[in-house]
């Protein structure tokens, strides 16, 4: 992820934001709840296991979900996968941050493939959490729903479909370049494109 340059004087108003924090560890939850209260969230909703979180997701309209990787009754990525496929709108499209402790690449992939908007490694200082929230505020990724995946587009950069595969999207470019339709530019025409010119404003 590219680090978003934070403008520290920029204002964020999270006072009416419905945030659900899910995790099995009471102290880990307390730390996150205090952090979000400090950010200005009025009452972060705490859920101590996946089942409780599923019930809340069915009742309240959420704006942000923060999920620990260990929920006691299920893994964090399993809850995210359930949420994305639950059909409970608009919560199935809500931004989800997965917080992991001991972080192996395979866990990152599981979180990403379950539909997490972001995976953040512990320990998470408030500045890092705020950076991720600001990133989510600017997140322009479309949502993808298919047989095997539901969640924000995992292609953060537009680099086209994997090599050797035909893209599945209408805006994926063909890997066949095709013949040129106009003559090549002459070198002096190319140079002219780079020449500085005086502009009248």
């Amino acid at each position, binding site marked *: 992820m590219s680090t978003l340059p934070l403008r520290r004087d920029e204002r964020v108003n*999270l006072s009416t934001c419905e945030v659900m924090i899910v995790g099995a560890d009471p102290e880990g939850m307390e730390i996150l709840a205090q952090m979000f209260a400090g950010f200005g969230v009025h009452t972060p909703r705490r859920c101590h296991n996946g089942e409780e979180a599923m019930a809340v997701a069915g009742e309240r309209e959420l704006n942000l979900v923060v999920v620990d990787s260990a929920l006691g009754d299920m893994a964090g990525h399993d809850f995210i996968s359930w949420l994305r496929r639950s059909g409970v709108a608009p919560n199935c499209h809500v931004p989800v941050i997965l917080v992991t402790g001991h972080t192996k690449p395979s866990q990152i992939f599981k979180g990403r493939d379950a539909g997490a908007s972001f995976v953040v490694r512990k320990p998470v200082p408030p500045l890092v959490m705020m950076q991720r929230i600001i990133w989510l505020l600017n997140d322009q990724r479309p949502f993808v729903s298919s047989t095997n995946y539901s969640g924000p587009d995992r292609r953060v950069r537009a680099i086209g479909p994997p090599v050797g595969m035909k893209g599945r999207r209408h805006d994926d470019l063909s890997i066949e370049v095709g013949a040129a339709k106009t003559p090549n530019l002459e070198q002096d025409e190319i140079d002219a494109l780079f020449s500085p010119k005086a502009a009248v404003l």
Partner: protein
Amino acid sequence: MSTARVFRIENRLAKIARTAGGKTIDEAVRSAETRVASVRDRCVAALAGKAEQLAAHAQSARGRTSGTSIDGLYDVSNAIFGVAGVYGLDALAEAACSLCDLVDRCRSGEDINWSAIDVHVDGIRLLATGETEGSESIMAGLRRVRARFAPPA
């Protein structure tokens, strides 16, 4: 190949966060840091209890061979890592992360090495009580154990 439906959704989080009022990012981060620090004593005090839970999980999982029997050990160790890391208890966080590594290897199908796990649990119990004088030697021992039983891939 399955068909993917791609669509735009409204960023409701951004819509709410950009309403008038609220805090500057600087104020929000400082306020959060203060509030997280305000629960430090309570959270750090709970670490000793978690370390005892580790020992209990290790005791009850011993003798059972399935990967799921040591899930509790992993989860508690992971929780210790999270809390210790936030409050700068680096040795404890490293020890807990090392135990997670060991247990995770067992969950992935490797044989459970109880000696290595026991050494880690004992080290974590000592570090979680606030033992700092011998923390370097505890960590040196744990690093040797980890290098022997769970070398980096």
